[in-house]
């Protein structure tokens, strides 16, 4: 089995850590070099990237659509805000982040248990309702959660060891805002490593199997409910963590920050990058963070006034989104991978044992046209009993 060897050899953990190390070094260098405004943008990209990564796992790997992931970000953000409000002394940062993750996971567990029984449009509707309801709660419990005004968030002081380390590495004393940007990128990289681990483990394989064929997955011994709920909790936890960072970056947690637009933005990032791809989620988050500014810039260069050029951004979003769905439905990363696979297949002898009939690897081709299924006893892929008995 020569084809198997190289894949068996490399440990996924080492590979992920290596990529993370390189990514971390680049992020550190970039965050140190840019000005405060850009650092703030990069921090926003990081928290969007974290939430999008969690969503891509749920939607891309497990096939559950969530239109309401902004709600979990809100839950994480409000949890963090309650910890980082006026109470003295502020809780340690790790505690704040863990608490936000834990609370979001708990809510995710409840929602996930309901979601595991819902499909397609029903699931979309339920998560949509969540996205609308959660910010509403903040207004209803205005006394604790600050109502429309929201809660202001005090950005924590960087710990001394961190300031020392950063000074040692970059000869600059980090501002609080800068510190949050570093923190966000650190968390982003940790989250990506953990999600990549999961995706390549038994857990990720289980998610994919459930996504592709429920009955076959069950017959292999996989509990559909369990797989779906675990995916939902992981995804909600990730979004909660992203929300906590968002609260620190924005320094305010208010209902207006968690409108439906946020949930749809996350979904856009995931679709743009390619469903199920962590790299794609990151690219999507980058596009959504930086595209508006670039477009607005182009708008003013073209002689539009400020309002007009600001309105250009959503328009370009929409157009880009439609183009991606039409031309590259697998998203940016998925399309690139498709090209690579096709090039490799076209290169021929790289995969020697594949018979010629199987060579044209068009993934949409249903089967070998030279031999359709037995004409006298056709198979029924959509036979009613294939999905029989689901309560």
């Amino acid at each position, binding site marked *: *089995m020569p*084809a*198997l060897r190289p894949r*068996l050899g490399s*440990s*996924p*953990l080492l590979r*992920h850590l290596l990529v993370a190390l390189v990514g971390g070094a680049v992020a550190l260098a970039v965050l140190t070099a840019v000005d405060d405004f850009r650092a703030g943008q990069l921090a926003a990209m990081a928290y969007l990237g974290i939430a999008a990564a969690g969503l891509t796992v749920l939607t891309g790997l497990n096939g559950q659509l969530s239109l309401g992931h902004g709600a979990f970000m809100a839950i994480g953000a409000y949890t963090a805000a309650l910890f980082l409000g006026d109470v003295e002394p502020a809780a340690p940062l790790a505690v704040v982040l863990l608490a936000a993750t834990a609370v979001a996971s708990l809510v995710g567990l409840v929602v996930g248990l309901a979601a595991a029984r819902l499909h397609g449009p029903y699931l979309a509707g339920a998560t949509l309702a969540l996205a609308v309801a959660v910010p509403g709660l903040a207004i209803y419990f205005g006394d604790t959660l600050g109502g429309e005004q929201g809660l202001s968030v005090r950005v924590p002081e960087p710990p001394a060891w961190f300031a020392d380390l950063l000074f040692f590495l970059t000869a600059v004393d980090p501002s609080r805002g800068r510190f949050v940007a570093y923190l966000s990128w650190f968390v982003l990289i940790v989250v990506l490593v*953990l999600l990549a*681990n*999961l995706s*390549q*483990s*038994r*857990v*990720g*394989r*289980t998610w*994919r*199997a459930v996504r*592709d*064929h429920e*009955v*076959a*997955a*069950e*017959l*292999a*011994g*996989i*509990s*559909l409910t369990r797989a779906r709920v675990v995916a939902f909790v992981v995804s909600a936890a990730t979004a909660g963590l992203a929300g906590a960072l968002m609260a620190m970056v924005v320094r305010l947690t208010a209902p207006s920050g968690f409108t439906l637009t946020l949930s749809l933005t996350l979904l856009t990032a995931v679709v743009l990058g390619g469903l199920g791809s962590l790299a794609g989620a990151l690219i999507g988050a980058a596009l959504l963070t930086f595209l508006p500014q670039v477009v607005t810039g182009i708008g003013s260069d073209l002689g539009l006034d400020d309002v007009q050029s600001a309105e250009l951004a959503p328009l370009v979003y929409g157009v880009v989104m439609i183009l991606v769905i039409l031309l590259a439905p697998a998203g940016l990363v998925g399309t690139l991978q498709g090209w690579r696979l096709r090039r490799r297949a076209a290169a021929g002898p790289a*995969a020697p*044992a*594949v018979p010629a*009939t*199987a060579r044209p*690897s*068009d*993934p949409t081709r*249903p*089967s*070998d046209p*030279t*031999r*359709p*299924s*037995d004409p*006298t*006893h*056709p*198979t*029924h*892929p959509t*036979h009613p*009993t*294939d999905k*029989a*008995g*689901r309560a």
Partner: protein
Amino acid sequence: MTTPSPLPSAAPAARGGPAAGAPAGGAAGTAELFALRDVTVTFGGLTALDGVGLSVAPGQVLGVIGPNGAGKTTLFNVACGLVRPDGGALAWQGREVRRLRPHDLAGMGIGRTLQGLGLFDRMTVLDNVVVGADRHARAGFLSGLLALPRSSREERALRERAMAVLDELGVAAHAHRYPPSLPYAVRKQVALARALVAEPELLLLDEPASGLSDEEMAALGDRIRALSDRMAVMLVEHHMDLVMSVCDQVVVLDFGRVIARGTPAEVRDEPAVLAAYLGAED
């Protein structure tokens, strides 16, 4: 189950006589691996199964035949917990199974291939088969999240195991491809590999020969006979040549009722069977 023995060929005790596998409870004396008793299923007004009873012994190949719509797939669905019967009982190794959930099946030692393919189309062939081996996986959430050595080691063992089964079925060369890009016959083998890698004690095959050429069907027949050395097989099939050459016993269904049972030769000559088939094919 820690040794990554590729196939259950390393399970010699499986059929060392009637008493080897099953505990001596239940039906006295008869070596009965799996049984349905008096099972009835209705869909709305339609009675898909009507008081059906049958049993499989270890190492036996039991054919279930009947015209289209006779209830064969429904029978398998009951056996798998996918359809809850309105009446009747199931017994596994002499013990009654009360609330059978589909995902408990693999752990009990029952494997099944679906009518059609039922492959995971966006996963590689190898991953498809590794999912089938999930029964033998132990790694939990945390070891996956942290990619602990335990998890990676198990993944490697499962892949080797899956690879060995693909190899045995002659489709190892396609391990890293995606099912939709493969010929139908190869995909059928992948579906079989996914069921076999779990090393079931009972294998339910729903129309495994559909879409196969004559040579492929002959090879499948040999394969099923060989499998019966290490597991019992229940076979739903329309190809009579295959059924007659492979099965030890045959049960004939028509309109949800058992209309005949016996050895292939006995069943073939039953007037009721001829009538059912003639009636169905006008």
